């Protein structure tokens, strides 16, 4: 019976084998061009498979952000904080599809056309199939000073181009990483309507436009060709593009919205507001670390030839920098912190700081440099945390110290430690490889400084205007009383933790959940056994 039921499986396998063999035998001896085309198609498939897998890993980082932000805040705000982390993805995905992707990459084929002809590396379609004739319209001054793209809205006409679709997947989850960073710095007091506007702001405007300057063939990327500054602004996986945009938005958001009630005293001293769940924070950090192996190595945009070399190096450097960042922050707290103990929450920030800092340089530096970069990040994050407190800026999860400060450090680190690896030759259309101060190039650091300055000023100023407008319509900050009782009930209409059966369901052994209205019935079953 069993045999008869499943006999078709080996039969099917056999049929498939026969068909494959027949097809192979039927082919004529392939000519060299056909072999090359097949090999190229295989390479494209491998590259796209890698980009897709990396996209899925980066998507999972949203879970990490949700856990870190929620664990680092109070139990009365869990539903609100978690909802922001759920909805920022949903809102951002649609916003980026509608407008964001077109603004960021709508001109990528125009500005990189000549680089593609060089057959060399760039953030360009060369690793991911044929992009002829698409994504080539934008606002570009004097040929190379790209400001924003203007094609590919809603992926119109692009649904048959698997390379573009894979690229969209990857870039969308990157945008989401930037968009979710400010929810941490404004947690526990952000009005949910204001949050939704913030999600649209990041996904549809500030991230795509500023991101275009570095990754979409914009003016920062072209500083090498226009100004002779190294290879132009070089940011492998987005210390500047993703983390600084998210981090500076988080910073200005925290300034405009103001500190949580009770965070600072009249005399200027600070009160700690401990998070409610350190295990959640640490689990989230490990998930983020895991996702970062898609974030950084995936940014090679391929896994063949030079792309493969860079992806693997990026993975190892990511591992080292995250690890040393955690160690250094832990030791700083252990030796100099107020409790003279290895503060878990600061150690979490240290790991993330190391990861953020290595994000731009991960494919350009030796492993020893990754350790140095991550170690310095572990110190910077602690200093920045104390500085914010001195400035009376309340950032509940440390978003600005982690993402803004170490995003800056990561971008600059490229200009210092980039080792002139030949695999990076022709980056951004400059024939020489990416080379930093320590390896003899004094101009790369200029392009990196330009990236840091441009991103900081633009995101800070426009973010200030944006948050002021949201504040003016009354959507920025939750009502003081709602903040005091916790945002879960007044803002969300649902408590985050509903496990208390006595309160919610009239007792574990009876009540509504058992469909019983009689206490006697409950007692007569389980109760009597106690």
């Amino acid at each position, binding site marked *: 019976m069993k045999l008869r039921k499943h006999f078709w499986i080996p039969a099917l396998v056999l049929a498939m084998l026969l068909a494959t063999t027949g097809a192979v035998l039927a082919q004529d001896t392939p000519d060299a061009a056909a072999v090359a085309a097949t090999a190229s198609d295989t390479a494209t498939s491998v590259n796209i498979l890698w980009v897709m897998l990396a996209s899925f890993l980066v998507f999972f980082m949203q879970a990490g952000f949700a856990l870190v932000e929620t664990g*680092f805040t109070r139990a009365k705000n869990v539903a609100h904080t978690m909802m922001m982390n759920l909805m920022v993805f949903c809102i951002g995905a649609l916003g980026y599809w509608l407008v964001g992707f077109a603004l960021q990459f709508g001109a990528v084929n125009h500005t990189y056309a000549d680089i593609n002809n060089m057959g060399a590396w760039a953030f360009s379609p060369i690793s991911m199939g044929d992009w002829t004739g698409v994504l080539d319209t934008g606002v570009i001054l004097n040929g190379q000073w790209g400001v924003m793209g203007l094609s590919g809205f809603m992926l119109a006409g692009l649904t048959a181009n698997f390379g573009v679709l894979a690229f969209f997947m990857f870039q969308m989850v990157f945008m989401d990483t930037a968009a979710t960073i400010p929810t941490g710095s404004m947690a526990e007091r952000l009005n949910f309507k204001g949050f939704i506007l913030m999600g649209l702001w990041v996904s549809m405007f500030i991230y795509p436009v500023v991101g275009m300057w570095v990754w979409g063939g914009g003016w920062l990327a072209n500083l090498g060709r226009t100004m002779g500054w190294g290879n132009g602004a070089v940011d492998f996986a987005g210390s500047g593009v993703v983390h600084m945009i998210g981090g500076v938005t988080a910073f200005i958001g925290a300034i405009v919205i103001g500190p949580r009630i009770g965070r600072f005293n009249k005399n200027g001293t*600070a*009160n*700690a*507001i*401990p*998070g409610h769940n350190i295990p959640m924070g640490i689990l989230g950090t490990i998930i983020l670390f895991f996702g970062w192996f898609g974030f950084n190595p995936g940014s090679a945009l391929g896994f063949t030839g030079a792309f493969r070399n860079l992806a693997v190096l990026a993975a190892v450097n990511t591992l080292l920098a995250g690890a040393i960042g955690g160690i250094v922050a832990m030791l700083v*707290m252990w030796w100099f*912190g*107020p*409790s003279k*103990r290895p*503060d878990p*929450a*600061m150690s979490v*920030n240290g790991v993330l700081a190391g990861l953020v800092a290595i994000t731009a340089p991960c494919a350009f530096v030796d492993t020893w440099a990754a350790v140095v970069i991550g170690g310095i990040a572990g110190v910077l994050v*602690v200093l920045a*945390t*104390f500085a914010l*407190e001195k400035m009376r800026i309340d950032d509940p999860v*440390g978003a600005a110290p982690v993402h803004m400060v170490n995003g800056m450090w990561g971008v600059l680190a490229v200009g210092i430690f980039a080792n002139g690896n030949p695999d990076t030759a022709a980056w951004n259309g400059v024939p020489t490889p990416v080379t930093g101060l320590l390896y003899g190039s004094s101009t790369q650091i200029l392009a990196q400084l330009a990236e840091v300055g441009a991103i900081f000023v633009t995101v800070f100023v426009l973010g200030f205007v944006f948050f002021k407008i949201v504040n003016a319509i009354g959507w920025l900050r939750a009502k003081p009383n709602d903040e005091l009782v916790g945002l879960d009930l007044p803002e969300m209409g649902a408590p985050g933790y509903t496990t208390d059966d006595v309160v919610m369901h009239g007792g574990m052994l009876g009540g509504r959940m058992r469909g019983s209205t009689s206490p006697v019935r409950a007692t007569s079953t389980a109760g009597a056994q106690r």
Partner: protein
Amino acid sequence: MTKKIEAIIREEALQDVKDALREVGIVGLNVHEVHGHGRQGGIELSWRGTAYQMDLLPKIQINIVLSDHNVERTIDTIIKVTRTGKEGDGLIFVYPVEDVIRIRTGERGREALQYKDDIDEKTKSPSR
């Protein structure tokens, strides 16, 4: 006469106290998780580099209702296993209890507090 003992002890001492009380024959008790401080005023902790005073420390409150002639022996037992000599060992309060009623049988007063193998049987003191 019946009395109630409320002992505020360290969390980590609970298992030892339960074992010791069972040995001397205190059969019935319940516990609360409580938070509070005494003279010590809590301990200093840090959250992301900011020091803060955790002045409401977690403690266990053990509630025992018993006949007054067993109070001293029970107190001695609790002190014996909970005293470390350091701050934070806790406090014991003793209150008079108006009445005790066992819901199942309707017994009242001392009768409601008597169990098989309880402290009275173990000390073989005559039931008064």
